[in-house]
């Protein structure tokens, strides 16, 4: 089994294929109900044509909505997208004040209301022990934030440990800013930890929710000496029941330059996949078991095999997911 198994798992739900989410991610919120091309890779059942053929749902054909019969009643009427997009030129103003000044909005303390107040969250997504073909150890993946709806200080970290020593990992501190309905931009720094030189990077990326509920993180990094790197992570939650949840995940890393001291050659360096099955005893506590794959690619794989290391490692994992 390889990381491709994770892709297959992602596609378990008819009409859902990871590739679609990557495509939509590029388009961000420009995706609309009627101008979205049918997902090229999706199962035939989900294509608009089939929806149209289905007798009970003829009118559910969203791809035809823009030009549907109503137009005849409303000549020249233009339907906008239901989500995202830019305001049309003739959009109305939301100001009904006639110039009357607000009294209370500037003293929400008296009201004991504050719709911009800050709150915080910590999610330890993975905290696990693993037993792989190349050895055993522990790994973690966590994120936390503090802030309001639009701006948050975001911290995330991932890494692993074996033989009692940190092997590979990093910590990122980012300013996350809401730019679209489902998307935030992130700007900050990353510091590599674990074996090898501790590189520092400037980080810029996007994070959000792609159509079909794929959680996506895509970050580009720039480091000293002209180093560049990129990381894309896609995660999905498949609810088997209300509490039993299968969580597939893929992560891809790439580097612009060789970094032999950290065992990296330029190009795509690794593709990791995971499939974890958790049971939410409470929303905040969920033990899980799963399987993860670490797969080195390209020059990085050559480098590893030259050093007698495994290129692909399959790991059984068991751990707990904690949410505060």
């Amino acid at each position, binding site marked *: 089994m390889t990381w491709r198994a994770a892709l297959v798992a992602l596609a378990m739900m*008819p009409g859902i294929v990871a590739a679609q989410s990557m495509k939509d991610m590029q388009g961000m919120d420009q995706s609309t*109900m009627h101008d979205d091309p049918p997902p090229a890779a999706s199962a035939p059942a989900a294509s608009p044509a089939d929806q149209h053929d*289905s007798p009970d749902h003829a009118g*559910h054909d969203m791809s035809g909505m823009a030009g549907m019969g109503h137009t005849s009643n409303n000549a020249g009427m233009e*339907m906008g997208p239901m989500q995202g997009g830019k305001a049309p030129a003739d*959009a*109305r103003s939301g100001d*009904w004040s006639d110039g009357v000044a607000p*009294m209370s909005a500037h003293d929400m303390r008296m009201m004991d209301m504050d719709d911009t107040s800050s709150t915080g969250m910590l999610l330890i997504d993975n905290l696990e022990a693993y037993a792989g073909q190349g050895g055993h150890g522990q790994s973690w993946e966590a994120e936390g934030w503090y802030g309001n709806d639009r701006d948050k200080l975001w911290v995330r970290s991932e890494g692993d440990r074996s033989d009692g020593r940190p092997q590979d990992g990093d910590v990122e501190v980012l300013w996350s800013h809401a730019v679209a309905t489902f998307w935030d931009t992130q700007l900050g720094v990353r510091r590599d930890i674990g074996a090898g030189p501790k590189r520092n990077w400037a980080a810029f990326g996007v994070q959000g929710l792609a159509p*079909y509920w794929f959680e996506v993180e895509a970050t580009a990094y720039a480091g000293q000496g002209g180093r560049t790197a990129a990381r894309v992570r896609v995660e999905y939650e498949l609810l088997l029941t209300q509490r039993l949840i299968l969580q597939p995940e893929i992560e891809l890393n790439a580097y612009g330059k060789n970094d032999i001291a950290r065992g990296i050659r330029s190009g795509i360096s690794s593709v990791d996949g995971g499939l974890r099955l958790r049971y939410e005893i409470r929303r905040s506590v969920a033990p899980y078991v799963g399987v993860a794959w670490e797969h080195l690619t390209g020059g990085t794989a050559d480098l590893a095999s030259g050093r007698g290391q495994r290129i692909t490692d399959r790991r059984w994992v068991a751990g707990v997911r904690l949410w505060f």
Partner: protein
Amino acid sequence: MRRSDVPSILLPRRRFVQGLTTAGVGLGLGLIRPAWATEPMSPASLLAGNAMDLEIREASADFTGRARRAVTVNGGVPGPTLRWKEGETVSLHVQNHLDRTSSIHWHGLIVPAHQDGVPGISFDGIPAGSSFTYRFPVRQSGTYWYHAHSRFQEQSGLYGAIVIEPKEGERHVADRDYVLLISDWTDEDPERVYAKLRTRSDVYNYGQPTLSDFLRDARAKGLGEAASMRSMWNRMRMNMSDLADVSGATYTYLVNGATPAANWTGLFRPGERVRLRLINGSSNSIFDLRIPGLRLRVIAADGQDVEPVLVDELRLSAAETYDVIVEPGDDRAYTIFAQSIDRSGYARATLAPREGMAAAVPPLDPRPRLAMRDMMGSMGDDAADDSGMVMAHHARSEYGAGVDMRVDMPRTNLDDPGVGLRDRAHRVLTYADLHTLGGALDTREPSRTIELHLTGNMGRFMWSFDGLKYSEAKPVHFRSGERLRVTLVNDTMMNHPIHLHGMWSEIESPDGAFQVRKHTVNIQPAQQVSYAVTADNPGRWAFHCHMLYHMEAGMFREVVVS
């Protein structure tokens, strides 16, 4: 306040009935009925007259087997039922024993602005340790309620019923007259509930679409059909189970402060006419209420008399009130059953000829799912809206991170009982059934229309009008004396009960005729509702969604009449 100083509410100790499992399996079948379940409740305290003292203080309350802090009025949750007479001037001396500012708002009462009780808008609040005397003439009759307008004090217990006797005497004679104040209680700190919603808005939703649901759909409708349906919602990142932000996962639903197990009981003699004053005094819940075996004759909505209409079930959105008359003929108990809109739990009470009797409690219905019309308005082919095409006009501020969808062609029909009630075999009340006696208060044609969209981003738990949260928005100006139309378009997939303080909202039918006068207008997902308002009460007023957590998150406006 130290814990030892906290007075205790003396209620019979009751075990909780919170959600599906305990309630449905245990009491629902009537098999497990512990002795305490049918203990008579002490009647809700009653205050009558035109001068009353109300004391707000923290107390320990126990609804679930765990003692929690509540904010009480005169020591109770709910507070006392206030009985006034139309035409009198009431004087209400409110003493705040909390360590923070408090307030009481008289919901649905048309009072002068400085008596309305919204801190920061219509008065300064009642500071910790001090008092405030409300004094206003009572110019209306019917069933209303009061609640705090300070942060989450309402969720913590500060609410109660108001019954105003008409000057000319009751139009409908009844042998019994009971208030049924339905509410939601959480053992969690409401601040914590709010923080959880803002970090993970579906945290209380245990009715999400799962793989097993999908397989069941696929068996029922075929794989293609099931997949295309699911795919459409998933592509939009919308959840067809998004019916209630806060559910029976944390809520215990109460009738007059009694849990389903405690079973508040109202007595009758067979053949009597019993008037029930139904009040949804909950913070964040919508209930569907029925009394198996009895038809409900609806005689008033939001305190205002309507042409009587006979129904079997009605939806009570947050802050709405309905008066119904029932005529239990048999010498047996009847269950008053109010399930939450997402079917995650229920409130229950009993009408019985004698204390200690109980009838079977119906099982909760299957969780409904939002339909196409709840997402697309009149463009959903199931919309059943033959009232003509309307186009919504979106505001520029709706195109941003705070808005997750917009409905271009909302449905305007009022004869839709809403999600979960559409397939009932029996008659369910809709707004189209309601006709206020005497017609509109002001027969002038509205001279202008203010269009406001109810907007939100469920994932981020941001709620707003026109994409602007309260802190980002300017007031809405009503020109003094004008008759204007407010058109509300719900661009979200949740119901929003919208409450305008200080003035009546006179709902219009889709063709513009006067329909019903209300203080709280529930707007269904992807629906447009218009109502006329006469701006005859000068001052600054609150205008907001009565889902407390939506209001706190920004679905709130200041209305200025000047």
